[in-house]
C-alpha cells in the first residue's frame, strides 16, 4: 500500500517514528507498505519507491530530509499524482471551516484514496458529506483518533456491538479540563491556578477557551452522535457550558456529598456539554488527564472505556485504522 501523510506536526512526526519502529509488524500485514509522501503547510517530500523512515524519523522539519523537498501546494499535488492508496490526514484542527483538512479529504476520497485521520475539524463541519463521499467512491474513512485519543470507541461499537442500539453516551472527552477539575478536587486549588498549571505543563491549546469553554468536548460529541447514533448534528446543535464558573466552593460542596464535578459530554435526546456531578464511585469518574466514555445500549446495557485521550497516544488509534484499511482492502481484492 502506498501511503501519504498530510501534516508533519506533533502527531505527524510521532506517526512516522511509530511506522519506523513497527515496520516489521506492518510489513507482515502488507509487504508492499511504504510511505511515498509527506507534506507540511509549505511543501512536501515524495518518492514513489518509499521514503526512508529512519531518516524521516530523525528530522523535525521536512526540509531537513533532503533537497528533494518541494515547495508548493504540497498535499493537493501528492493527491493529484494519483499514486497513493491511503492518505493519513493529521493537519491542525480547525473547527470553524474544517480547513485545510476538509479539502484534502474531499480531494483524496474523490480520487478513490482511503482516508485515516485524527483531525476533528473536517468531521465536525462535514460529517455526512465526507461519509457519503467515501461510500460513493468505495473508500474507507476511518477516524478513531478524533475522539478520546487511544480509546477504541468507534472500532468497538462498529465491530463488537453491531446489533446493539446506542441509547446514551456520556463521556469525559477533554483531558485538559479533567486535569484542571482534578487539581481543584484533590489539591483545593482555584480554577485560575489549575489552568495556569495546565498551561505550564503544555496541556492546553494556545487559546485555552478551546478546552475550558467546552469547544473541544462539543466537537467530539458531534462526531460521536453522527457516527454512532445516526444523527445529523452540527456544532451549533450542542448546548455548551464550560468550566470557567466552576468554583472551588462548588467542588468542595460536591465532594461532601461524594460527587466530583466533571465536564461531561452527554448525548441522548439532547446533546450537551456541561459541568456535571459525577458520583465518585461511578466508572466515569476518572481523574487527571484521563478520558472515559460510558455507553448505554439496549442489549449490552452499560460499558465504560477509560484511557488516554490526547497527545502521542492518538498514534495508536491512527496506526490501528491504517492496519484496518490494509487488511480490509487486501481481503476484498
Amino acid at each position, binding site marked *: 500500500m502506498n501511503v501519504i501523510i498530510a501534516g508533519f506536526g506533533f502527531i505527524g512526526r510521532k506517526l512516522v517514528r511509530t511506522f519506523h519502529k513497527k515496520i516489521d509488524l506492518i510489513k507482515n500485514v502488507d509487504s508492499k507498505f511504504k510511505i511515498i509522501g509527506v507534506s507540511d503547510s509549505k511543501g512536501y517530500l515524495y518518492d514513489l519507491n518509499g521514503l526512508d523512515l529512519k531518516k524521516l524519523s530523525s528530522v523535525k522539519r521536512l526540509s531537513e530530509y533532503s533537497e528533494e523537498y518541494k515547495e508548493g501546494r504540497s498535499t493537493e499535488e501528492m493527491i493529484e499524482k494519483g499514486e497513493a492508496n491511503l492518505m493519513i490526514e493529521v493537519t491542525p484542527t480547525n473547527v470553524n471551516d474544517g480547513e485545510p483538512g476538509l479539502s484534502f479529504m474531499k480531494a483524496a476520497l474523490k480520487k478513490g484514496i482511503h482516508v485515516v485521520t485524527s483531525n476533528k475539524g473536517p468531521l465536525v463541519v462535514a460529517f455526512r458529506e465526507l461519509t457519503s463521499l467515501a461510500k460513493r467512491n468505495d473508500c474507507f474513512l476511518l477516524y478513531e483518533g478524533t475522539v478520546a485519543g487511544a480509546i477504541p470507541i468507534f472500532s468497538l461499537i462498529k465491530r463488537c456491538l453491531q446489533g446493539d442500539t446506542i441509547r446514551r453516551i*456520556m463521556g469525559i472527552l477533554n483531558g485538559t479540563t479533567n486535569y484542571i477539575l482534578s487539581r481543584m478536587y484533590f489539591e483545593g486549588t482555584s480554577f485560575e491556578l489549575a489552568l495556569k498549571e495546565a498551561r505550564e505543563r503544555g496541556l492546553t491549546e494556545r487559546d485555552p477557551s478551546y478546552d475550558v469553554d467546552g469547544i473541544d468536548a462539543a466537537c467530539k460529541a458531534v462526531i460521536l452522535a453522527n457516527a454512532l447514533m445516526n444523527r445529523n448534528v452540527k456544532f451549533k446543535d450542542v448546548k455548551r*457550558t464550560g468550566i470557567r*464558573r*466552576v*468554583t472551588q*466552593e*462548588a467542588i*468542595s*460542596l*460536591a465532594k*461532601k*456529598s461524594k*460527587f466530583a*464535578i466533571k465536564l*461531561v459530554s*452527554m448525548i441522548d435526546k439532547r446533546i450537551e456539554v*456541561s*459541568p*456535571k*456531578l*459525577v*458520583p465518585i464511585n*461511578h466508572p*466515569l469518574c476518572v481523574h487527571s488527564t484521563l478520558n472515559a466514555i460510558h455507553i448505554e445500549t439496549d442489549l449490552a446495557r452499560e460499558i465504560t472505556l477509560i484511557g488516554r485521550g490526547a497527545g502521542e497516544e492518538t498514534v495508536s488509534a491512527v496506526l490501528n485504522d491504517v492496519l484496518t484499511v490494509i487488511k480490509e482492502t487486501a481481503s476484498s481484492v
Partner: protein
Amino acid sequence: MKFDLTIALADRPGQLIKALKPIAKYGGNIISIIHERENPSDGFVPVSLVVDFPSKWNLQKTISDLRNMGITIIRAEEIVDTSRIIAILVGKANLKDIIQRGIKNAKIIGFEVSDPVSEDACLKLEIEVPTRLLDETLENLRRMAESEGSLIILPI
C-alpha cells in the same frame, strides 16, 4: 398507580379470600401481601397489601365494597416513587424563587450555602421529587438558573 392498602380482618378462616374479591373486581393487581396472623388484636388481624390499581377511582370503589363487607380500612395511601437529587448553583440564587418556580412538587431535604455574599455564591440543594416529575423538575431548575445567569451543576 401503586397503593398501600392495610385492612383489618376478623381472625376466622376464609376472611382473606373474601377481602381479595373486590380488589380483583376493580382491576387491582396485588404486588405484595403481608398477613400478620401472629399479631391479632381484639380478634382482628392486620393485612398489608401493595396493590397496583388502574386509577384512584378503582381504589375508592374497592374501599367502598370492603367497608360494605364490614372490613375496616386501616390505611389507603398512594405509594409515590421518589428520587433524591443534588444540584449545585453558582451565582445568584434566590431560595424562595427556587422553591416556588424551580422545584414545586419537590421537598427540600437539605441545603448548604458557601460564600453567600460573593458573585459566585454557591448553593447546594438536596431535594426529593416524585420520580415521574424528575425530568420536569430538572428542566425547571435549568431554566431558572439560565434566567438568573447562574451556573447549575446537576448529576449525570
